[in-house]
């Protein structure tokens, strides 16, 4: 299907700047595997959440004041005096959690179906870059209300850079803009918190560009071979994604309207006080697995390296995974290892929120060892020794084969 506009204005513009043709190609007749399950909905949902965060964030920033003496009360001003300010703020705060839920599901889907394998390594890398930018943005956003957890979270995380040999202290002072977390820190965090989402948006465009170059992976992990295997993105996946978005919005609304503080921490309703340290400094839930890895090492520098290493190894995944079969559907051993890895990540999340005492220290260390064992040892070995199940000849064949069987039995 080529793009032949009928509207004369569209025609005139597209002849000079083929932007409508490009959008048509990307959102309308983009050939998509016809067997994508609902696990593929989370990509567009992540894009949707980025838009929600940017829109609510821009309005919030119109009412927020980035100053250590005023920030806390300006947030309460939003909650009490700004029309629908409570809605905007709860949407933004819970939206960050929703964004991470969606992105984590999106990443695990990629792990299960081998979406990072050639020729999609750069697509995977760009996704990880988005993930890193999201973490930086969320961390700085959590500092802005200037509550106790804001302040002490900022103190703990920025101090991590002090572990760098020789220049550590200098770097921390440079990050703070002074000799402690203070007004200059809050101001620069606000500035960067406003900037980074637009950087994310830019990388998202690259991510989609790379995606559309080779097309989406699919539950069989087999490339599209002929016309029978694919359907146009619109209307098939626009409507499927809209349905998925409806379900997701109901889930989001349940938190937003009925438990808006459930994912937060009560201490952040206490104004920041540099003289009083909270009993337990806990980061937001989406950082807990990494916090657990950080604390698993008794040495500060070692912990910091391991924590960043936990994400760095994900960049090497396309080369660590030796299997030529993408989808776990045809990899009986990898499939089981995948679910053990998921459980391992849940355990890390749990331990990350617990005080640093036994038995959590031991559990955290074991779970950390397993995290790296899975990626650095098990994954390469399984790829070499695993006997995969027979692959279907094409996506169409896989879909037709499945039809007579019970529908729920699919590997969706």
């Amino acid at each position: 299907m080529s793009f032949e506009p009928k509207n004369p204005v569209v025609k005139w513009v597209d002849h000079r700047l083929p932007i409508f043709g490009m959008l048509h190609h990307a959102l309308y007749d983009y050939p998509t595997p016809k067997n994508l399950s609902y696990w593929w909905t989370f990509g567009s949902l992540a894009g949707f959440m980025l838009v929600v965060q940017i829109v609510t964030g821009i309005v919030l920033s119109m009412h927020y004041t980035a100053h250590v003496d005023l920030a806390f009360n300006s947030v309460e001003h939003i909650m009490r005096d700004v029309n629908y300010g409570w809605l905007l703020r709860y949407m933004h705060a819970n939206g960050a959690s929703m964004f991470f839920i969606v992105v984590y599901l999106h990443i695990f889907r990629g792990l299960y179906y081998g979406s990072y394998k050639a020729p999609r390594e750069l697509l995977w890398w760009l996704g990880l870059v988005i993930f890193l930018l999201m973490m930086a943005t969320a961390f700085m956003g959590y500092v802005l209300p200037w509550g106790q957890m804001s302040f002490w979270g900022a103190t703990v995380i920025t101090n991590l850079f002090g572990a760098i040999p020789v220049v550590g202290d200098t770097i921390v002072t440079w990050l703070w803009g002074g000799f402690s977390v203070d007004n200059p820190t809050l101001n620069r965090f606000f500035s960067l918190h406003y900037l980074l989402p637009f950087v994310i948006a830019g990388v998202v465009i690259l991510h989609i560009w790379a995606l559309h170059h080779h097309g989406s992976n699919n539950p069989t992990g087999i490339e599209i071979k002929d016309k029978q295997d694919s359907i146009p993105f619109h209307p098939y996946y626009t409507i499927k994604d809209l349905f998925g978005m409806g379900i997701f919005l109901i889930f989001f609304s349940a938190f937003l309207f009925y438990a808006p503080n459930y994912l937060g921490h009560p201490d952040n309703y206490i104004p920041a006080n540099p003289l009083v340290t909270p009993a337990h400094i806990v980061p937001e839930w989406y950082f807990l697995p990494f916090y657990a890895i950080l604390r698993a090492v008794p040495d500060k520098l070692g912990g910091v390296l391991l924590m960043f290493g936990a994400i760095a190894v994900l960049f090497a995944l396309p080369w660590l995974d030796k299997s030529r079969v993408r989808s776990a559907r045809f990899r009986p051993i990898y499939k089981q290892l995948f679910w053990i890895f998921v459980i391992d990540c849940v355990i890390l999340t749990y331990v990350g929120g617990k005080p640093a005492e036994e038995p959590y220290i031991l559990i955290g260390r074991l779970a950390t060892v397993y995290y790296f064992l899975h990626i650095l040892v098990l994954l390469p070995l399984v790829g070499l020794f695993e006997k995969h199940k027979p692959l279907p000849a094409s996506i169409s064949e896989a879909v037709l084969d499945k039809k007579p069987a019970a529908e729920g039995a699919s590997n969706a």
Partner: protein
Amino acid sequence: MLKMIKSISAAAVLSVMAITGANAAGGNIDYKSVDWQHTGIFGTYDRSAAQRGAQVYREVCAGCHGLELVAFRTLTDLGFTEDEVKAIAAEYEFVDGPDDEGEMFDRAGKPFDKFPAPFANEKAARASNGGAYPPDLSLIVKARPGFENYLYSLLTGYEDAPEGFELPVGMNYNAYFAGHKIAMAAPLSEDAVEYSDGTKASVDQMAKDVTVFLAWAAEPKLEERKNMGLKVILFLIVLTGIFYAAKRKIWSDVH
């Protein structure tokens, strides 16, 4: 689809357990549990309890604790009339100015003012309270693990210290305070206030009433939020149903 729902629910249950476990860190005390009228999906603040609670705050708590985020005008949310709000505001004195001569002057509070802090600054507050700093109560219900139940338990949790418990001079024993040593003496005593609606002002009653009032102070938009949530979710269920029907129709020709 079915399998996916199963996987997602399993993951959700695990994650909620992980996060709940995480948030429970540090809050290991079991608080007394009260069935508050404003919790739950259709919950609304108990107006008469909140009005009585406002009286408890003004006559008992306000001596040491501020409520600096709450404007008098918002008291109409709790069913106070405009005249009552004006009268409550006028009980407090505010420094205003400068006037045309450049002088600061005192004036009675107006509805747009907020409940003032009882002390000029933290040092003055500590000097009057044996070194302890009575926190502002505007957000207290949201700022403590256990929330309403914590505050109610704390207010009704004063006991004699168990034998062998070392209580420093000027401290009081409270079963629900972290470490059990609290500088605040038991604030409520029988008939500390006289309720105009005839309710008996027992310690338990006053503790419940002031907790409802402070829950409202911390989350004044709770009713608006739940009300909107119900409409939004009902709308989304219908919309999602339409999307699902459309999806079935559109996909019916894919084989």
